[in-house]
């Protein structure tokens, strides 16, 4: 068995990667992917600890999260496409009509 602290560390690295991506990248699609990465970091925790304790709840939760993530991607892509049709760009730094 892998020690649980290692799992936590790995998931934290994944999570931090996701956060960093959201903060650094400018492409809306990649930001979206990074947000999904954060969800996967959480999934890793859920699955590993569910396996660790031998109960199925966490694994079922992870499946549910995957489904939700897919729905989120679908909606996100739709919005990004709508934006692209309007502004011809998916760079988030180019959209700041609303501010102040």
């Amino acid at each position, binding site marked *: 068995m892998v020690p*649980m602290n290692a799992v*936590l560390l790995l*998931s934290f690295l994944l*999570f931090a990667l*996701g*956060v960093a991506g*959201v903060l650094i990248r400018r492409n*809306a699609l990649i*930001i*979206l992917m990074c*947000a*999904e*990465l*954060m*969800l996967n*970091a*959480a*999934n*890793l*925790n*859920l699955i*590993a*600890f*569910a*396996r*660790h*304790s031998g*109960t199925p*709840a*966490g694994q*079922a*939760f992870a499946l*549910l*999260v995957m489904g*939700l993530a897919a*729905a*989120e991607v679908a*909606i*996100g892509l*739709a*919005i*990004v496409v*709508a*934006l692209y*049709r*309007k*502004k011809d760009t998916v760079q*988030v730094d180019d*959209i700041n*009509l*609303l*501010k*102040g």
Partner: protein
Amino acid sequence: MSFAQGLLEALTKDLPLLYGPALLAVAATLMLWPGDRFVGRGNKKAWAFVAALVLLAAGALALTAPTDEGFNRMFRVDGLTKGFQALCVMGGLITIALSQPQLNALKEQTVEYYALILFSVCGMMLLVGATDLVSMYFSLELMALCIYVLVAYLRHQERSVEAGLKYFLLGAFSSGILLYGISLLFAAAGGVTTNLAELNGRLALVSANGSLLVYAGVLMVLVGFAFKVAAVPFHMWSPDAYEGAPTPITAFMSMAPKAAALGAFLRVFGTGFQGIASDWMLPLAYIAGASMVLGNVAALRQQSLKRLLAYSSIAHVGYMLLGVMSGDAQAGAQAIWLYMLTYLLMQSGAFAILIYLQGKGEGERIDDFRGLGRRQPVLAFAMMVFLLSLAGIPPLVGFFSKFILFKLAIEQGHVALTVLALLTSAVAAYYYLNVVAVMYFKEAPETERAPMGSLATLVVTVSCALILVGTFFGFRLMDWMGRIVLG
């Protein structure tokens, strides 16, 4: 007995708890298909009435649901659930009524609009009853995903799409943080349960070694919720999303999801994580205080009434978080519920008038209210009532809901925060009164009057009347309701 039999039995036993939300989901699905096949292109407006009826029915079902817990202790119907479900349904109904003039004018009546509102109200109704982090996360996402789409609904308007994208990206970000926090709590409790009550018991026993994990988890969950209710410093999406969204959806966002998220906030923090209250109380106090200050100060500068209401709603959330911090969960829930109810009335009235002016070609800028007192005295009077009530000026109802909340906070020993709340509410009076002053003391060229439309008139009349009635004996009424609904 097999797992599946158990599942079926659970369903038949527990389903009555969910008749309301289930009706919404089924009806919205059927509206999309096959319902929409039978409605002609020009008649989409009819869906508004269908959706309103479905909402009413769902509200009635929710209020008559048995008080019980079910679905493997994932969902619970109690006073809190019913009370906040009622608020969400009201928010949905008001939104549908307010949407009519704008959607007709823009020729954007579609079945999807109403189906999305129903789905998101369904998510809210599930959210306030969720007693398990799984069901909570699921319903939170159901609610939020629908609202992302609704914000970007006017896909031919750049503002709307931009608002939708911003809200979506930040929402996805915060939902990632929330879920990671949930996973940490799950891990800290040993990976056995996601049930709130059980988690609370287990987390309180976590050794000093794991306390960092618990704290990080609770904090991340707190961040997720603070984002959903738009509390500082996780509020930045709200002014932009409020401004860009179609105005009825702005009204919707300031009422229903806020009520639902606050209900869940109460459920998770007020009653759920009581055992580890010392972990989240101080950060929450900072969040509340910062929301009051920033919300009110930032609103001073606004030229657009939509943005002003967005910032002021940040401040109102700051006040309501005082109720979450109350050690007496029942009293806190009641105070927040009353506040939210009165807030709903004032907000719906103000938005109805705003939408009406928008429809006339005047915009949402505060300057467009110039001379409203002369042009349309009745409307201006109603607007004044809403604004003064929002400012919390007695004897209007908004004062009493504030009073009850602040009184509770003082009793709970949050004196410094309450004083801050009082001070900032004095600032709030300034910008609300500024709008009143513009309406009455500034002249504007005469413009022609357009009829307001029966639904918007209804909303304005009812909410204004309720505020005025509430001023005199609303409190007996509201107390009575609070007792019955919140138990």
